[in-house]
């Protein structure tokens, strides 16, 4: 970090020092024309909220690392399966349990399936689950919590009691129920998660809205005659978006973890579809013999979850105005 001069000297004109000090030129004492007065000038560059957030994020190495990892995972998810001449369920008994090598970058499993392609395919599932679950729960949570917070009173009471009841039931129960009725696939995992995931977001949004809805600028919007919907969408939500984004960013790794966990214990995505959880589960039986089968999916899970957490931390620091120096 470069040294900052805390006491910058302001150069004073030469005529002040030395012999001339008592004999200043007369014209210096002429009136300063109105136009040369720098009144009401704002000389700081205009920085919008998001530009400020961006510049803070850029200065956070962990958040940058997080973004890089997620970018790499995304590339892996999109191009990984195409990059290799294998498909995720193509079995080849002549190359079972191979260690990583030039033919099979991450090695193969007990059916001779290419592990690289399967991990890449797992990335598709994990990232999809994480992002979709987060996006859906954000939309529901923001509108539900926002409405409860803004309207307050009886509406708030009823809406939040419903949230309380929903969150009183263990989430695993919903998931198993949905998986059993709709079958074990990505769609039902997503559906199951969307059922309860928004509850926390709704609570956070409501608390945020409550804390700003009595601020003067909301009053001002009402005096102008803006509609309730506009006040909610144009003032309240934009002003509470920081904590919401942070909360949602932290929900992504949770969702990914949940999917991996469910697949790992065998009630999530079922074979032959490869998710990181099922891959890790598959490797369990032969872990001591073929550790690469465990290492690659486990690393992928950890890296992704770490990365999202780093991003979440960075966003929280960047978005929270109270931490502003």
């Amino acid at each position, binding site marked *: 970090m470069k040294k900052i001069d805390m*006491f910058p000297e302001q150069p004073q004109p030469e005529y002040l020092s030395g012999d001339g000090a008592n004999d200043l030129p007369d014209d*210096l004492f002429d009136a300063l024309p109105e136009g040369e007065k720098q009144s009401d000038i*704002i000389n700081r560059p205009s920085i919008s909220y998001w530009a400020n957030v961006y510049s803070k994020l850029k200065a956070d190495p962990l958040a940058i690392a997080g973004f890089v990892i997620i970018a790499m995972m995304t590339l892996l998810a999109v191009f990984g399966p195409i990059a290799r001449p294998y498909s995720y369920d193509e079995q080849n008994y002549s190359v079972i349990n191979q260690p990583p090598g030039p033919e099979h970058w991450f090695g193969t499993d007990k059916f001779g399936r290419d592990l690289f392609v399967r991990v890449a395919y797992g990335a598709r599932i994990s990232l999809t689950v994480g992002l979709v679950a987060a996006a859906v729960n954000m939309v529901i949570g923001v509108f539900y919590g926002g409405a409860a917070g803004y309207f307050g009173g009886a509406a708030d009471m009823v809406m939040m009691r419903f949230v309380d009841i929903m969150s009183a039931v263990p989430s695993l129960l919903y998931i198993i129920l949905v998986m059993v009725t709709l079958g074990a696939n990505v769609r039902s995992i997503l559906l199951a998660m969307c059922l309860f995931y928004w509850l926390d977001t709704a609570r956070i949004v409501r608390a945020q809205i409550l804390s700003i809805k009595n601020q003067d600028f909301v009053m001002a919007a009402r005096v102008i005659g803006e509609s309730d919907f506009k006040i909610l969408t144009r003032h309240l939500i934009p002003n509470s978006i920081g904590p919401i984004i942070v909360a949602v960013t932290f929900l992504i790794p949770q969702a990914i973890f949940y999917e991996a966990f469910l697949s790992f214990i065998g009630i999530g995505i079922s074979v032959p579809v490869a998710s990181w959880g099922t891959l890790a589960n598959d490797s369990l039986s032969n872990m001591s013999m073929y550790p690469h089968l465990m290492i690659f999916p486990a690393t992928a899970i950890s890296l992704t979850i770490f990365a999202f957490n780093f991003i979440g931390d960075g966003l929280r620091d960047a978005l929270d105005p109270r931490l502003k120096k």
Partner: protein
Amino acid sequence: MSDEQLLDVKNLRTSFLTSGGVVSAVRGISFSVGHGEFIGIVGESGCGKSVTMLSIMRLLAGNASVKADSLFFDGRDLLKLSSKEIRKIHGSDIGMIFQDPMTSLDPLYTIGDQIMEPLKIHKKMTRREARRKAAEMLDMVGISSPGQRLDQYPHEFSGGMRQRAMIAIAMCCDPKLLIADEPTTALDVTIQAQILELMMEMKKKFSTATALITHDLGVIASSCSRVVVMYGGLIMEIGLSEDIFYRPLHPYTNGLLNSITRAGGKERGKLIPIPGSPPDLMNPPVGCPFTARCEYAMRICAEARPSSTYVSENHSAACWLLHAKASGMRSGIARHGR
């Protein structure tokens, strides 16, 4: 000079490091406070008046840097003291009152505990002695039935009473200097006057020097004998209260006086505002900070910072209008009538 003065500050500078850059909040100011003197530091928000006092007390956050040529309090160089020694001075030799009594009182402790705390630490009093003294102090600041009040918590006190309790805490160790940072701003009109009277009474009783920081010229006029006017991190004018109010030298002081209504006065004069806004101290002007808003600005004002010029023993101002060559401009002003 420094052995006569209680507090003597020479070329104090304070900067803050922020995400946007360095903010030079105080940019080289010198002043002194005599023993038993009631001095007012007046200026608008952001002029550096509070930062000045906090710098002297070393009470600033970590992103602040303080520099001074000298900083003497009661014969001791504050710049050379360790933070432990500074803490010893706090609460014993220097008492402080802040704007919002609710945030400076700890809600978890009774008022009594908070008055007794410094007594036990600095005066080495026993609990019993401290309690007696605390009750005495509460009585002195005009809180009735002090014995009961000692055991109450800050939230049980009203705003005015909290400020009285703060004064009791600040005064209990018999400080040589009382720093009051906007002590009346958060209070209602009727309570403001009460608190101000109390402070003046305290000053008389203990002959404590008081430095009152405020933006309110009414508060200054009702209490201070000497006034420091600050603007843009610099001192614009120092003088006796009468000098400042009746014979202001600096156009800024003059502008301030013109922009307020003199409520007691008979006539309803028109307000003459100072146009524009104060300078941004992240990028302060090279010359006089008031140039942009000054009716009488000259070319030199934009280029060079004026040094302070004395017109009498106690009255000085930093303004180029006081320079011999500015006579043309001065006569123009005289014609318009200030």
